[in-house]
């Protein structure tokens, strides 16, 4: 199996690569923005920290937006977005104005309200409640994961297979699964054994499939 982490200059992926090496030493992992290499991979991981619109600018500049839409929506390549990478799967972000995302899932990314009693960003381990038919959490008994984010998705605008809900003053989307498209707002590679199992499930249980049904736009 070959897994490619998409390189668009989104920062630190050391732990993610280490986690993949740990759980699946036999898997060939690459960190690349080469479209041919990405297309030849069994699975893609879209990492990311930082600013939504800057990230999308880089993704556009590398020709990754149209490429990923084609690969994921038409060719059914499995993709997992992590943290900002999950946010980018959605239609639009609102950091510094409204900016289009990859549009693989319907929904928008907005800032946590500030000025209340809760600190923003939301940092630390928090629990998840999973709704729906999840492959990602199969066998993951304890569902505490490490978060660090100031923006969040509050609702997924259509039927998807499973949503992981987290509470931080309000309910927000901590993970989403729709056939070949999955995303986690939290960092599985920083979430102890819980996160390693979840990454393992992405490798083992999320198939390549052309997404059906009502999820996207």
């Amino acid at each position, binding site marked *: 199996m070959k897994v490619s982490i998409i390189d668009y200059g989104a920062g*630190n992926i*050391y*732990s993610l690569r280490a*986690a993949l090496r740990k759980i699946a030493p036999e898997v060939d992992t690459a960190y690349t923005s080469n479209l041919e290499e990405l297309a030849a991979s069994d699975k893609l991981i879209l990492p990311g920290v930082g600013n939504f619109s800057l990230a999308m600018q880089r993704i556009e500049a590398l020709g990754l937006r149209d490429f990923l839409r084609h690969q994921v929506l038409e060719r059914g390549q499995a993709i997992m977005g992590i943290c900002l990478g999950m946010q980018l799967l959605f239609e639009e972000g609102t950091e510094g104005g409204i900016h289009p995302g990859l549009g693989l899932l319907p929904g928008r990314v907005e800032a946590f309200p500030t000025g209340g009693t809760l600190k923003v960003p939301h*940092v*630390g381990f*928090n*629990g998840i409640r999973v709704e729906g038919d999840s492959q990602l959490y199969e066998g993951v008994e*304890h569902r505490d994961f490490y978060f660090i984010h100031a923006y969040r998705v509050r609702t997924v605008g259509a039927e998807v297979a499973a949503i992981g809900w987290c509470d931080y003053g309000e309910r927000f989307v901590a993970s989403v699964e729709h056939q070949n498209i999955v995303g986690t707002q939290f960092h599985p590679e*920083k979430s102890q054994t819980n996160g390693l199992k979840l990454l393992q499930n992405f490798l083992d249980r999320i198939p390549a499939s052309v997404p059906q049904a009502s999820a996207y736009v």
Partner: protein
Amino acid sequence: MFKKRLIYVLLYRNGKFCLSRNFRLQTIGDKQWLFNNYNFGYVSKYIDELVILNVEGESVDWSRYFENVQFVLDNVFVPVALGGGIRDLETARRCFEVGADKIVLNTSVHTNPGLIEEVARVFGAQAVVASVDYRREDNRVYIENGKRAVEDQPLEAYLTALQGLPIGEVLLTSIEKDGTGFGFDTETIQRVLPHVQVPLIVAGGAGKKDHFLEVAHLDGVDAFCTANLLNFIGEALPDTRRHLVENAIPLAHFDL
């Protein structure tokens, strides 16, 4: 909803990991020792966060430090704070590049608060841990690995002044309790709590599981550390975690 954290602090100097007692260091073993003999791969499954502090002082071989850090990070999958001896943005940036989620600043907090502003601007205030080492006998903060006292202000005033800086957390370490295993300086911790508005991590003195319980019960103490390679060996840290959970301390639960 808010979980407290059990944190392990590794002290690094010159290619080796160390024990510290009252900030006097004793070399214990290298990275191979840490994983092969000490079994840190197992121990680390029971922690919420890892701090790897470089305690070399001013003449730091950063490449070697980062090499050791990455060896650890190949095997430990929790949020990580790196620091010790960071004096400029470039070094901070390298810490993030090798896998840090946060950096720890101590001497610079006092001598160059502008660095905190810079780091926070680039990486966010949540990525900055202000480390404060103090002595109870004179109620003063000490910088430069505990060697130099900040003369002009008592601990409370120092902590209060920190609130004006963009920091995510305070790591408060008792120099007198450090490495003793005699228990945390609970009295001082309680006294300074009103002066700390960000999450507080306490360190220095943990020797048995009830020491953790004592500080974990305090509102306002978000996290507690051990930095002693010999106080919590074998099953001691797993036992500590279970003990805290049994006593209703909200910790994350991990699949084992």
